[in-house]
């Protein structure tokens, strides 16, 4: 194996006349999402130093998953940033989900996705945050698709450099090859009990594994 790699390297070097180095993939640490089924699905949780995409439609459990992850991170002493393109963040829901709000920097972009992108870039470049969430869940698909691939690359490299877990919450996958993990959320059914809405059964599918895997969980009100 080693000899084959060496031969391949010398051949490419001879052909293109450039020094070739194979960069070893660094071992990544992970944030537990706090939901065992999702941790199993993602082989341990959300990886640090990478870009992760969580997509889905309304009421598919995206925010429930993110708030649980945010709660785990803040309880572990991490500082987190929530860049909210639409201004939809609900502090009371976050608090109920176990998020220590004192460790969360909330940026309300008031519906401007471009501001959200720039703010995420500034905050992740500053370093020191364990988890940075860019919430584009209410941004129209047309607008989200307009984000150039170079911007996603820039964010991914910044995440690699600062060892932060960068998570993008959106309606559909946009960063494509720049993301190390893609999770698609699907709603299964709302759970009603008498006159009360009690929760939501949701399904998550990991999109970056060779074989698509799914997990189900129940989020309660």
């Amino acid at each position, binding site marked *: 194996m080693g000899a084959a790699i060496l031969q391949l390297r010398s051949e490419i070097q001879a052909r293109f006349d450039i020094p070739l180095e194979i960069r070893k993939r660094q071992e990544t640490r992970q944030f537990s999402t*706090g*939901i065992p089924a999702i941790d199993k699905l993602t082989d341990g949780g959300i990886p640090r130093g990478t870009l992760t995409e969580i997509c889905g*439609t*309304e*009421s598919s*459990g995206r*925010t*429930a*998953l993110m*708030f*649980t992850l945010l*709660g785990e991170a803040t309880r572990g*002493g*991490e500082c987190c940033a929530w860049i909210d393109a639409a*201004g*939809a*963040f*609900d*502090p*009371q*829901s*976050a*608090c*109920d*989900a*176990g998020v*220590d*709000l*004192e*460790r*969360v*920097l*909330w*940026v*309300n*972009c*008031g519906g401007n996705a471009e501001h959200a992108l*720039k*703010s995420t870039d*500034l*905050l992740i*470049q*500053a*370093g*020191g*945050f*364990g988890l940075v969430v860019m919430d584009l*869940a209410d941004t129209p698909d047309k607008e989200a698709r307009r984000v150039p691939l170079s911007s996603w690359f820039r964010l991914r490299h910044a995440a690699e450099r600062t060892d932060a877990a960068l998570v993008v919450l959106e309606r559909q996958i946009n960063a494509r090859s720049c993301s190390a993990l893609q999770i698609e959320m699907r*709603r299964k059914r*709302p759970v*009603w009990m008498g*006159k*009360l*809405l009690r*929760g*939501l059964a949701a399904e998550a599918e990991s999109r970056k594994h060779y074989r698509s895997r799914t997990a189900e969980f*129940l*989020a*309660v*009100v």
Partner: protein
Amino acid sequence: MYCCLHAPGNLSLLTECARGFSPHIEENPPDTVVFDARGLEALYGPPEVLAREIERRAGVPANIAMAANPDAAIHAARGFRGITVIAPGNEAAVLAPLPLNLLGGSSGTAELLHLWGIRRFGDLAKLPPLGVAARLGDEGVELQRLARGEGYRQLRPMEDPLEFEADMELEYPLESLEQLAFILARLLGDVCGRLGTRSLATNEIRLRLKLENAPEHTTSLRLPVPMLDQKAFLRMLQLDLNGRPPTAPVLWVHLAAQPLKPRRTQHGLFVPSSPEPEKLELTVARVRHLVGQDRVGTPEILDTHRPDTFAMRAFAPRQGGGTALQETPTLPRFCLRRFRPPRFAQVLVVNRQPVRVMSPVLSGRVVMAKGPWRTSGEWWRQDVWNRDEWDLALESGGVYRMFQEIDSGRWFLEGTYD
């Protein structure tokens, strides 16, 4: 050696000059300053050379005297013109011709000495010490010691007021913020330099701008931790002024810093890293400039039942790990994503049940509706709330929270359960 500068009516200039040579300065109002010049020979050479350098920097014609003790230097500077350097041990001989009125003392003693025919330092120095003690007491002994140039005492260093301010009156009105940045950089350099020499930092910088034919423009930078980063301060002031520029050309700039001891922390080896407060403050200022002043921070839930009530506080996470929360939920929570402000919607109601929703955000048939739950409160205020809340599932699959205002009967979309 001690050096004394004497120039009538120029005390502040003399003090400023002395500050350039030593931090130990004693002011003798109204016209004399003496400072500790020990060790300066290593920098400037012999005392004569040092004295010439001091004369050059003084900026005003001043008498300069150098002696082994402060009092001898003061008397020489007050009595001799130009530069006087008194070699150690030679004080009595040099000071001998000076008139006795320079020595001070009480009026009674001065009158008595005048009656005795004592007119100069040398005359008093020659008197037998025991006789002086018997006739003039302690004061006489002290005066004779001073006349001989033998007095030795510690300097009484002046206490600088802890004011870190700088200002600049401009020769012509400044219109562009870019030009103003150069002035601010200079003033910040001055203030930060002074803070630095005292090992201090600041957590508040106040800027005042006098404008041409307009009210004064003031702004204040409040920092969560004491800092001393001139470039960061400048950038933050620039961002602030860009967001809220002065309304007229600037005539005068005044900058003041609140002195504070710098932050000293030791991080734990196993504690997750957090953003550097100094760097974070600049980043937050940039983000604030981008999205708006009150849109960045940490939300603090207020103690009220009014929906969606919170205050935005400055982001200042606790140092170290741990959390203030006691209870952690065992299951993931179904969360609400809010519409801010709530979106107006038209709702078709049949048999007191909503059956169809129409709004610019979403429309569709209601497949499940649970409610109403009435909430109201703060009837004593103008903005009283009184409403019926509903949880609705639409045929599209989304689950939403809506409410109907009791007074107006209008429906609003409050948020999406997600």
